[in-house]
């Protein structure tokens, strides 16, 4: 089986992006995927399904919680929302990511 040929995102970044997305409002998986694509203008193309293992992992860690609800089109869908622990985690990850970004920029000489 050939690996997914689209550009991979930095490991761990997907979780941060999901957390960031959920700060706007509780969303279902498809919503999160849509949002990520619009936000990053297709740069961060993800194999969309890989959202779900990530969401699962985050639920286990207690960063997000989920419940079933209805979409505006009256379909049943699972909505994910950020927990207080998730908010803390996001702050932490953003801080880490900023540091990393600064470091990368310094190395690349783009500041």
């Amino acid at each position, binding site marked *: *089986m050939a690996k*997914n040929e689209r550009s991979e995102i930095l490991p761990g970044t997907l979780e941060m992006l999901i957390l960031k997305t959920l700060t706007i409002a509780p969303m*279902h*998986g*498809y919503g999160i*995927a849509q949002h990520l694509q619009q936000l990053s203008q297709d740069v961060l193309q993800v*194999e*969309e*399904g*890989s959202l*779900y*293992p990530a969401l*699962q*992992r985050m*639920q*286990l*860690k*207690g960063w997000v919680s989920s419940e*079933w609800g209805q979409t505006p089109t009256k*379909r*049943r*869908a*699972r909505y994910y929302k950020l927990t207080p*622990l998730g908010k803390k985690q996001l702050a932490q990850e953003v801080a880490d990511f900023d540091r990393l970004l600064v470091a990368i920029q310094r190395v690349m000489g783009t500041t």
Partner: protein
Amino acid sequence: MRNPIEYVAELTRRIRFYLNRERFERELAEEMRFHVEMNARDHEQAGMSADEAAWAARRQFGNAARLRDQTGDVMAVGWVEAAIQDARYALRSLRQAPAFTAVAITSLALGIGATTAVFTLVNVILLRPLPFPAAERLVVTAQTVTPGFFFAVDSMPWTYNKYVRLREMVPAFADAGFSSWDEYNLRRTGLPAGAPAQSAERVRAELVTTSLFSTLGARALIGRTIAAADSMPSASGAVAVLSEPLWRRHFGGDTAVIGTTAVLDKLPVTIIGVMPASFTGIRESAEMWVPIKALAELGPRERREQMANEMGAVVARLAPNASLATANAQIKTAARALNAIFPPPAFGSRKAEWSGGVVGFAEARRHPLIRPLLTVLSIAVGGVLLIVCANLAGLLLARARARESEMGVRIALGAGRGRLVRQMLTESVVLALAGGIPGVLIAYGGAAALARVRPTLPPNFVLLRNADILQGVSLAPDWRVLVFVTVLTLAVGMLFGAAPALAASRTNIADIIKVAGSRGGTTRARGRRLLVIGQVGLATALLVGAGLMVRSFRALLASDIGFAADHLVTLRLSGGESTLATPDRRAEMVARIAALPGMESAASSNCPPLGSDCVFMPVSRVDSRATTRGEYPPMEIHVVSRDFLRTLRVPLRRGRVFDSREAPGRPTAVIVNESAARLLWRGQSPIGRRLSTLGDSTAPTEVVGVVADVKYEAIDAPSRPAVYYDAGQFSAPGGSVIVARTRTSPAETMPAIRRAITETDPTIAVFGVATGDEMVARAASGTRFVTMLLSGFGLAAALLAALGVYGVLAYLVTQRRREFGVRMAIGAQPSSVLALVVRQGVVLTGAGLVIGVGGAFAATRLLSNFLYGVQRTDVPTYVVIVAVVGVAGVLATLIPAVRATRVDPIIALRE
């Protein structure tokens, strides 16, 4: 980073997920479906056709099945579930291949069983602590003499009077005990009137200080052990503690034995306790323990005076803060002080240094040959197990090949490669477990069998190291054995499962989907070829070892022991209130035995052949010259009755044997063996020369004869220079060894010999009865043991390796059927196809042989302790083994090769 509360919370969530996993899976599927449908709807709204939209959405989403799998894997307990699933699947697929499964399980059970059996012995002998509390703090101390009589440094037991002082001079000893050694005739007394009289029984007793049992921390099974108050005899004599086997054998295992009385020779004792079976004393084979001082008090005055110079083992318990090093240093200091109080015996001009040292108790009891023996066993059995693994890996690789399409389908359906590897490994571990469980039973039986045929290791001069450690030891698997077998089984499963698992994970679906016919089998079989080369190499090395041992064993049996072992009986006497006391009575008894029907001759001596029990004395004068210390090794001293050399049939080389010219009174004549003649007179005739070995006070004796060297120690030990004295010339009796040569079978004459002894003196106990052939067998038992096991392992290895060669070639032939068919169709001769296949086998076998010979050359170093009369680089052995393995390798290729020539081109091409 993570605090424990978060961790517990996560674990709780994981368990909740697991408990509701069905609902979870349903919901996950629904959620994913929703995602794809929403996406498809969006695509449709953007103008795609319904089909296009659905297709795009699915592609965008990725492989749903694999993602679901991954999501499942995220859960902690997911892997448990997966493992159970894998195991179930493994069982199912193994059931589908019953022949393969049966072969695999049987060979695994035997391999794991044999390995664990050897480990059981290693565990009992090297790992299991002695059955005493904090046994690792127990040490044995001995005197050291540099230079020694036998080695550069000799170990000598301490004497009682030195022990008493040593105990106070070494602060590193929290407590210490002394144990000397003697044999007695034990007889029960005070039996109720009318009870059947019991005969005397020879028992090995340890004469111990009252501190010994407390030092060891040993507890009695019934009654009590010897305590401080027992150091002096009471009105009813000394106290005595029995071993469990003696208690069962001589006292019927009766608990009422406590408080009853018995006599040791003539000394009265009261039985106060029975030790558990696990307690075998300081010297392992002890059967009874009595307080040394109380027993001496009961004896005559000389006995009390002798006690001070009685030699024995000193066992001590190290103080909590003391190490072996501090104990050693303190003993050396103490030994210097002791040398001032008890000046060491001086001899000639060169002085030996007397000091002392300390070793762990467990270490002190191990025979020096034990480690080399167990090392050889472990390596041999490990080699066989590796070959078993290699065979199974080969079989599994072939199976994996057959299952490639299955794997391909599974990958195509979205199974992760990691999951496939795990699946394959689970299968091999399930197989290994199926073999490992019966393996435990085989191990238990195997260890017991090994223990039963254990060799009598040649006696060793170093203190305590004669112990037969396996005597009375439980071989039932303990936790160490169970841990070992579990780890071994899992490791074996991983080992032989690794290759096929990797092969499965490398499966390329493109290959599978393409037409099956275009595959070339040769590259894929490289792993199997390497396995087979390794197998042949291991088997060759094992067989070379076995071959060297067979040659050693034959050399040992064929070697000149200096006497004729057939039709010979030896036995030892003890006690005897009248017979052993005077030379005349002994001569009368020997004459009585010699006169028995079927008897050729009989004699007495102080040292049986192959018994390692001889006395050594230094040479003090040769002719008129006084020797210096260390100039000559000490002489083996034999005090023999007149017919001894004739009874043993020791060849006479020069001069004469003892006859009536040897007048009683004082020793005037000696016979020396060839070694002594060579050593003392360097090729000149010793007849008529003079020699003193009994100290300067006795007059020199004249050498009247030279006889061949007799092996008194062991067959594979060099003969020592020996001097024979005529017992008739001594006023004191000689030894208590009887040798007799029979005309009929020696075993048949035994009852008559015993009767003759009892008629002479009923108080004599007979022990150590053996025929000459038995003595030789016992002396060769170490070599025989190693020979037997190495041969067994070597043959098993060779058989397995041949199967391996056969397997890989059979597989190659199957792979290349079409090719062979084509070759034959275009006119190739069957013989050229045959040669093609055989050549492959020869290359494999040849490569294996090269590795094997190299390996054998390196590994036979480990056998050096057991080889006799053969070099470890013995060329004939190597040549024979290489030839045997080579022929076996070619034979193993013949069946597949012949099959290759029978390929029907039509059928092969049509397939």
